[in-house]
């Protein structure tokens, strides 16, 4: 595994500890609450209890109720107040309990947070970070499984980020909190405890046994707009992010195809050069995401690749994605684009 993870200099010498993704996210918030008195953390159940996924456990006890607190069940209110806090000068880090529940906040996200700097010509800004667990694989049914990233990438002014491992999760979350733009920070919940590769019938390896579960204890960032070459390869390029990074890795192992796997990390704005260079080298491209296919972010990636790599492409770009249906409950594993479906696409791309 060849991981090109640029980090800021100060982190290099820092002590590392094994962390799950949950611990890494908590550590990021802990570091930022400590460093910057203008950082506040809130959301449904995040205060006393520490969040339904426990990402904020202990933070209220450490920083007090004025800086880490429970919010009413109103996603619109959570984001709307965060915008107001941004106008004041705070940096709110808010949690939407499941990405499926961001819709009541969409006006505040799209019409307000994303456009405030623009419409006020920089007079006001909304440097907020909106965390949301996303993705399926936990038998959560259609309202605990969605991956709505494509919707955010269509909204200019937003940054959309999705880590695939504890190291990136912490570094990207710190970078997002420090960023002066509003950031949608999507956390693939199926990766909270280990690098799930889509083989749901096998026990998942814990992060403690994965190198990317080694996380520096202090402050560091993984820069936004930088993709990682998760696995170098020569035969085809896989462009993916989140859970599908590991599913794609499984498909590589199972097909033996020497694919280069690009983990986008920042979905939009994105690190276009890394993609283009890779596809121009391999000539074949498979785009993989868990979200519904039609008008998913894979469509944009496909469009970009065909635009920038047209003369290097030897086969149609393949898209592997969730089916165009709500995320079903019982048929979850028929819905989830697992290693077999990814492998089929690899083969199609190689044979074309």
């Amino acid at each position: 595994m060849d991981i090109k993870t640029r980090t800021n200099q100060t982190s290099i010498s820092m002590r590392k500890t094994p962390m799950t993704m949950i611990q890494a996210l908590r550590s990021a918030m802990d570091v930022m609450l400590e460093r910057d008195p203008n950082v506040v953390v809130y959301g449904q159940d995040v205060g006393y209890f520490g969040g339904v996924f426990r990402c904020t456990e202990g933070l209220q006890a450490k920083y007090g109720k004025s800086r880490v607190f429970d919010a009413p069940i109103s996603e619109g209110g959570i984001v709307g107040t965060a915008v107001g806090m941004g106008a004041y000068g705070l940096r709110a880090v808010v949690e939407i309990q499941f990405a499926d529940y961001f819709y009541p906040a969409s006006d505040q996200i799209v019409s307000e947070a994303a456009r405030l700097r623009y419409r006020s010509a920089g007079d006001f800004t909304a440097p907020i970070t909106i965390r949301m667990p996303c993705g399926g694989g936990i038998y959560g049914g259609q309202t605990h499984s969605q991956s709505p990233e494509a919707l955010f990438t269509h909204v200019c002014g937003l940054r959309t980020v999705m880590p695939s491992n504890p190291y990136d999760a912490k570094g990207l979350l710190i970078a997002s909190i420090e960023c002066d733009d509003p950031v949608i920070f999507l956390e693939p919940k199926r990766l909270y405890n280990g690098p799930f590769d889509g083989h749901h019938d096998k026990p998942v390896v814990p992060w403690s046994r994965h190198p990317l579960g080694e996380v520096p204890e202090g402050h560091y960032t993984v820069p936004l707009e930088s993709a990682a070459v998760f696995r170098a390869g020569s035969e085809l390029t896989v462009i993916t992010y989140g859970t599908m990074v590991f599913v794609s890795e499984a498909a590589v192992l199972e097909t033996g195809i020497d694919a280069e796997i690009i983990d986008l990390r920042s979905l939009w704005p994105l690190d276009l050069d890394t993609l283009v260079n890779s596809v121009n080298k391999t000539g074949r491209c498979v785009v993989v995401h868990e979200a519904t296919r039609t008008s998913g972010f894979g469509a944009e990636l496909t469009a970009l690749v065909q635009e920038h790599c047209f003369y290097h492409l030897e086969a149609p770009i393949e898209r592997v994605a969730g089916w165009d249906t709500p995320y079903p409950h019982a048929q979850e594993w028929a819905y989830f684009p697992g290693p077999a479906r990814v492998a089929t696409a690899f083969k199609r791309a190689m044979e074309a």
Partner: protein
Amino acid sequence: MTEHEPLRLHVPEPTGRPGRHTDFSYLHVSSAGEVRRPPVDTRPVDTNDLAYVLVRVLDDDGRAVGPWVMQTDPKLLRRGLRAMMKTRIFDARMLIAQRQRKMSFYMQCLGEEAIAIAHALALEPGDMCFPTYRQQGLLLARDDVDMVEMICQLLSNERDPMKGRQLPVMYSYKRAGFFSISGNLATQFVQAVGWGMASAIKGDTRIASGWIGDGATAEADFHTALTFAHVYRAPVILNVVNNQWAISTFQAIAGGEATTFAARGVGCGIASLRVDGNDFLAVYAASQWAAGRARSNLGPTLIEWVTYRAGPHSTSDDPSKYRPADDWAHFPLGDPIARLKQHLIALGAWSEQEHEHAQKELEAQVAAAQKEAERYGTLADGHMRSAAEMFKDVYKDMPEHLRRQRRQLGV
């Protein structure tokens, strides 16, 4: 402007936490019989006082007292008691089935049984409820909803009427006046108003009944429902189940501190009541009152049902992390089943023996239903609806792109 004292953020706290008993005096409990019963055509603004007190009928000795006492056939009360018992047994067994991993998830209504059940009995055939996930009592109060089918839904098995698409407890029974449950909180509250408006547009006589939890009242759709119900004088009952908790957050985080959820109704020009939700007779009487208003073109009624979520939020939750473990035992409004039982026994219309007998009979009924349902499989054993079902009902007719995807999956 240094003359001012520094501002402070107020973050409400419950009066109890793990290791510290709850002081329930924040509830402002009226005594039974104390609260007036206004005429059904009262002006909404004149219900203001009723939004801050608690309509109660059953006193501590199980006697029905005061202006909200209605002439109710003891048969109906016995039916209500049995339905509450059945619901509690059902919940308990399903909880075990979930622990045995036969189903992925479950949600009980322990301690809140009286609300949905007495309400269901106060409605008429054809009325439509828009419930949350904690109103299984609306279904279990009826004789025409097959428990086997309900359990098939919970097991996500081959006979799951929702075809495996929904989480357990997300039932839909149009024929039984039970709207499809959504995972997104509060949305159904507005839809209930829309259904009621439709009934009014058509000159129908059926009414709607919308449901929401204390926590979910903070969602926008709560306000939206109140606004539309008020503006169009929609024939709808707006039920707010205040069970004191929303997962780990106390009702004050939803806005219950120093006010009530019923009071929000009055502000919006809606007649409102605050009612003891653990008092079967009070629930029945208040529901009848509200239904009468709706059916007489007098408009909506908001009812805050005060109760307590005795169990965990769901099978994914551990309430001992955020509240005293024995909280329910101290809740001043008691157990709705015990209270109705006491009343019926006092009336001479029920006995300990009958109770015990009913308990056994209902346990057997639920067990038999479960057994039969399990014959059609469970999520765990993989006997579920085919993956082909996944592509159906996205649209009325399956468009070409879904056919293509279905072919790709090979189903």
